[in-house]
């Protein structure tokens, strides 16, 4: 498994760059991961989504479905892709430190 270096700390990620240990997630990790997902700077709107995802996962141990994610943040899907060009699953969930979404491809 590869590692990323955030402020001198080595964090394990999988091949797709998803954080392996959700406990290690913090704002700096989010900033680092954002750069790997074409988000140069995390704005307030980004943080709103990232924190929402992180909290949702903490509470329910799952990622929200896309419809819920849009509704709860008052965004349509187009807006989500504007903020996270690689999409809610690959982009936003990764930045929020969630495990890799699975399911049928």
């Amino acid at each position, binding site marked *: 498994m590869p590692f990323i270096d955030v402020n001198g700390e080595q964090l394990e990620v999988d091949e797709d760059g998803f954080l*392996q240990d959700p406990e290690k997630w913090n704002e700096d990790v989010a900033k680092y991961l954002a750069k790997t997902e074409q988000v140069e700077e995390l704005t307030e709107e980004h943080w709103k989504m990232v924190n929402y995802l992180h909290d949702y996962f903490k509470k329910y*141990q*799952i990622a929200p479905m896309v419809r819920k994610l849009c509704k709860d943040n008052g965004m349509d899907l187009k807006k989500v892709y504007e903020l996270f060009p690689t999409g809610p699953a690959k982009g936003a969930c990764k930045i929020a430190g969630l*495990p890799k979404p699975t*399911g*049928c491809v």
Partner: protein
Amino acid sequence: MVKTDFGPPKYLDMMSDLCKRNYGKWKYHEVLDTGTLVHVAENGEKLYTVRSATPRLIHIDTLRVFCDLADKYCNGFFRFTSRHSIEFLLEDESNIEPLKADLHAMGYSPGGVGNTISNMLHTQGWIHCHTPAIDASGIVKAVMDEVFDYYTEAKLPARLRLSLACCLNMCGAVHCSDVAIVGIHRVPPKVLDEKVAKMCEIPNVVAACPTRAIRPEPAKKSVVINDEKCMYCGNCYTMCPAIPIFDPKNDGAAIFVGGKVSDARHPAMFSKLAVPYIPNEPPKWPTVVKTVRMLIDVYAKDAKQGERYGEWINRIGWERFFKVTGLPFTDKHIDDYIFSVPTFRSTATFKW
């Protein structure tokens, strides 16, 4: 800005003038031989189709040779079928035989038209899939080699659709095919607790189990599986990489028969279990191959002209099917999943 959401190439740009001219104006077609069709338009124009099965897994250089042949004989036009066969579309009848000769020279034989086995629909298997219980391409190759005479010669009572899916996700219409091979597991998956805790969405893993065999194990932030309830579908593994289900000693193939999608004569039917398990025997899966050959031979000999596999079984009855095929009937053949009761017989009218 990257160009997005423009959709596939327009199909009319991929069609010959003859096809465009006669679009929606076809009058009838005839089967000329097991590899050739002719479609006749209202205005009398004819389009000849030469069909040839491909192995689905195709290198670009082979596709380029197909392109060369289409340029040489078809003004640059061909199509594929939904079953991985290529169809060359010819306007000039005199090009049919030279095209067939060129196809033979590259190891491709026209066939699969009419009362034959068309190509075998299949999936990725060990070549590129992460959940397979069996390989796909290897079994297809071995089976098609064995039943090739049924592909090139019209000696079946009706068409026969063969298919293979390498796991219970059943990509491909194995559940509605005349003869179908499905990859199955036979032992419950193993739970790697530490990894589950890190990698998986536990409520989704629990919900993924159709028999409610999985429950959360909060102390370990993992799950436990009740082995008694597990029927090895692998749906939990699809949701969670930390619950591997593979077991080379136990994975293998089941064979189903009698399904179809067409409504002609009898409405579409699901395929039904004929053989619950045959172990993986790479590289040529001799037992699977022998069994499929036998299943087709028996049908070819016993069915009436025009009867699809399932229609034949409906006529002779399942007790006769197991008798004429010599296959053992076991407790595995009696449904105990969700909709089992309507499959039980409530009559004293049998054949012996």
